[in-house]
């Protein structure tokens, strides 16, 4: 309980305070320093990031992210920019979702063709896709089969993904490296690109993406409003802004349980698993500093988004905020 009162008070104070200072967890730091310190945090935790996510949430963060993608329900051809998506959790799920849709479609059309057998065997199973796609490649286009394998695979898979693409953007190169490594490991080579950049000034063109996602990242940005405005800029008309972020648990009993877990267990876990108490102390504090569902929704609305909604996950521990850019 004591944390929650502190949280709401300090948030109000923060927002009233002059532009110079911002919050870093419960600490107050100069604005220009926050970015650096956040960078440090994620540089330190990058290698253990996924392990810690699993440990802290007992795997529930996977369910949240799966649900997040299901809410988005992207169709083939969708262009996604995943901001603060360093380790690629959202990006891989996005591509998998699209792939499964394409598989379903081709299954459907095959069923429609009354089981005409194999020539058009273009479906790619994601599990061992590397192998499969090269096979398909050499089957269908044997004349140029010995040209540089990687590029051809890319082109081929781009065709299979029907132009779907995800740009993973993160300010932190270490996190991107972890993501790239994971991508290589599971054979996700095409339909994905990696970009180092600040969410407050994305190095991409305006009106160029169908969906903008930011999962567990916006909390760490110095100017949340700028980030949302930037999201508005890069989205096409009709595009969707989706944000998965820790939020506030409205039920006081659950909140007290959640608070004591956060403050008593998570930093200890951080120390044991990642040898880093302070970063995880920052994590739980920054969650308390982040505005609650309604406040954040109104911030999104203020940046010009329409049809702004949110959905609580696990009693409000996390929430999906969504808005559309109409024009």
């Amino acid at each position, binding site marked *: 309980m004591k944390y929650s009162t502190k949280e709401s008070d300090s948030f109000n104070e923060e927002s009233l305070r002059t532009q110079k200072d911002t919050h870093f967890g419960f600490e107050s730091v100069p604005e220009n320093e926050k970015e650096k310190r956040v960078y440090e945090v994620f540089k330190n935790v990058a290698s253990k990031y996924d392990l810690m996510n699993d440990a802290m949430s007992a795997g529930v963060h996977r369910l949240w992210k799966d649900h997040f993608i299901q809410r988005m329900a992207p*169709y083939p051809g969708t262009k996604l920019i995943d901001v603060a998506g360093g380790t690629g959790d959202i990006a891989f799920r996005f591509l998998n979702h699209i792939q499964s849709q394409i598989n379903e479609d081709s299954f459907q059309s095959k069923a429609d063709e009354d089981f005409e057998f194999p020539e058009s065997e273009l479906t790619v199973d994601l599990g061992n896709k590397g192998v499969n796609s090269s096979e398909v490649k050499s089957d269908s286009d044997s004349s140029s089969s010995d040209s540089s394998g990687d590029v051809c695979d890319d082109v081929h898979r781009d065709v299979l993904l029907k132009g779907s693409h995800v740009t993973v953007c993160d300010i932190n190169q270490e996190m991107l490296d972890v993501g790239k490594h994971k991508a290589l490991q599971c054979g996700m080579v095409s339909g994905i690109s990696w970009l180092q950049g600040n969410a407050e000034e994305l190095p991409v063109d305006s009106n160029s993406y169908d969906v903008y996602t930011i999962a567990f990242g916006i909390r760490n940005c110095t100017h949340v409003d700028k980030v949302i405005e930037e999201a508005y800029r890069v989205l096409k008309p*009709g595009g969707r802004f989706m944000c998965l972020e820790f939020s506030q648990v409205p039920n006081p009993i659950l909140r007290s349980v959640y608070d004591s877990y956060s403050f008593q267990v998570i930093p200890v876990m951080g120390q044991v698993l990642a040898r880093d108490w302070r970063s995880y102390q920052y994590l739980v504090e920054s969650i308390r500093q982040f505005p609650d569902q309604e406040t954040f929704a109104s911030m999104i609305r203020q940046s010009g988004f329409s*049809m702004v909604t949110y959905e609580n996950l696990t009693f409000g521990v996390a929430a999906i905020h969504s808005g559309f850019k109409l024009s």
Partner: protein
Amino acid sequence: MYIPVAEGTFFIRTALFEPFLAHYGFVAIHRQTSRSVLLGRQKRLLSTHKRLLSTHVNGSDTNNGNSGEVKTDEVLIGSKESYVNEEFYEEGEEGGEETEEEYHTKERILRASLPFVHQHGWTKNAIAAGAEQEGLPSVAHGMFPRGGVELVFYLLQTMKIKTGPFIKEAVEMRLRMITPYMDKWPQAMAIQTLPQNAPEAWSNLGNLVDEIWYYAGDRSNDFNYYTKRGSLAAIYKATEIYMLQDKSDDWQDTWEFLNRRLADVNNAGKNVKNVSDRLLLNLVRLTLVFISH
């Protein structure tokens, strides 16, 4: 200390007048159906009456190939309906107001999605296809979190607007059924009013108007349910009596009489609303004057 008075008038207004207004709208209403689209639609229609007219007449509805006459009819009925619903929805809605642009975008997408239903069924796939047709990203289907059922509701909503003509036709059809016995019908009406026969006559009439309202799409479950049926029963009986002495070809005068009665009820709704609004306004003014002295 005058606040209780003000509250009292408010109570009287909401509890007594509103249901009348509702039923004078003469349009079927689903209280439960509307969440996003229907709600938005009705609020939209209400809040900007003029814009409604221009939307329906000049807007995209024109390419549906309806005749001009029907269109004006729809506009009238639509406006009544929206008016009525506003009263219900104002309190229940938890989210923010839907803007004009949001409403039009959603409507545009749903309209474009309907042709894809044959291919994709009532699913979000159809909505996604419709969004792409409209030049929007397919993820715009996320504007309809309930998925395909929003398409169904949208379609029903566009159909429901024709309730007004439906009721008129239903009454007419029913009255035409008695024309073969018209020479002896006064007697039939008379014996139905005898005390021993009246209960069944009343319940027959009740069932008749209930059926008409039901098939017009009405599912109201409040006081409104009775007022709607009551007013339709009155119109039905009045027209029946008029019909007894009608000597025109094909009972032409009767159908005109029926039209006028239906229009009367619509107008009465409007007038009652105006009067009660003015009354309330004056009462508030008076109250303020009292307080300030």
